[in-house]
């Protein structure tokens, strides 16, 4: 009586091995594809931890961004070099995310410049710092000249600011305290100096 548990014949065994290798290869390919999709989804995810922390009355740490300098000034520079936000610890920094094609940015730039001049004249350790995003550098420089802006600006060439500051668009303004924590965030246009100065004065009384 033939045994049902007898080992399979040679060709059959070879065929099973090929099928196993094929299944493993297909499994690896599918796993790699799923992993790539997962990485893509995780990277595209909208991070809102800064907004949540601010809503809870906390001050989340500001990211340590190192960006090219578009316009030097107030201790930020030289133009063309790179500058790290971390180098501004000890000063209150008003970070304005802007672009030359952004219409509200045109309205608020003179207001931000007035704020910068106000604290500079007082000798207060307060700095206004622009970060130009998604912009042609020549247009950004023309914008600076057109509005005769006195404060410095960095450039976000590689799109790092979106993720690091969790911006939703332009303009957006952040107030970073002397300890390097985000104390305030304004989405949209700054319409008056008083929208920003009370926050700044609370952090660094002049």
């Amino acid at each position, binding site marked *: 009586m033939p045994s049902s548990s007898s080992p399979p014949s040679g060709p059959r065994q070879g065929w099973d091995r090929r099928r196993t290798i*094929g299944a493993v290869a297909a499994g690896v*390919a599918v796993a790699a594809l799923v992993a*790539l999709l997962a990485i893509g989804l995780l990277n595209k995810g909208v991070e809102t931890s800064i907004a949540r922390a601010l809503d809870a009355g906390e001050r989340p740490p500001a990211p340590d961004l190192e960006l090219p300098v578009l316009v030097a000034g107030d201790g930020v520079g030289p133009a063309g070099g790179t500058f790290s936000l971390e180098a501004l610890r000890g000063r209150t920094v008003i970070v304005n995310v802007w672009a030359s*094609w952004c219409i509200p940015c045109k309205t608020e730039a003179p207001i931000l410049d007035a704020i910068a001049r106000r604290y500079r004249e007082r000798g207060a350790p307060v700095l206004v710092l622009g970060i130009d995003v*998604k912009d*042609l*550098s020549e247009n950004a420089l023309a914008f600076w000249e057109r509005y005769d802006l006195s404060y410095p600006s960095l450039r976000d*060439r590689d*799109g790092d600011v979106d993720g690091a500051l969790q911006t939703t668009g332009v303009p957006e303004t952040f107030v970073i305290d002397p300890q390097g924590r985000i104390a305030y965030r304004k989405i949209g246009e700054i319409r008056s100096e008083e929208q920003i100065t009370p926050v700044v004065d609370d952090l660094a009384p002049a």
Partner: protein
Amino acid sequence: MRAVLIALALVLAAPALGAALSVNEVASELRCPTCNTPLDVSNAPAAVDMKAFIADRIERGWTKQQIIDALVEDFGPSVLATPPKRGFDLIAWLVPALGVALALAAIPIVTRAWARRPRGEGAAPPEPTPEEARRLEDELRRLGDV
């Protein structure tokens, strides 16, 4: 001899006589940094500025590659419509190619497997239980009576 010289001149001048570089020809290889759509179909303010930049550089006689390089310098490599064929971005090109190669390699294996499968294997219906056989007989008899 004159004809040969004219032909030679035409060949040498061909690039200049060819279709002039258009804004969309350059823009189609880039994407809008604010809306992530192809630059040639985007009307976002940033895209409008970029197209004006392209038009200006074409007028100045820049080549397509020079214009693209300048925009990559300003916006980073993510401004390219297709990822560069080097470094980590190479994966984006290799994975689909690998998928196609695997699929092609699988065709002979799968067809051989189908060809070797004994006819009818797994297709034979199970034997009816005595109860099912009795009901079947009853149904057939009833149909026969009708």
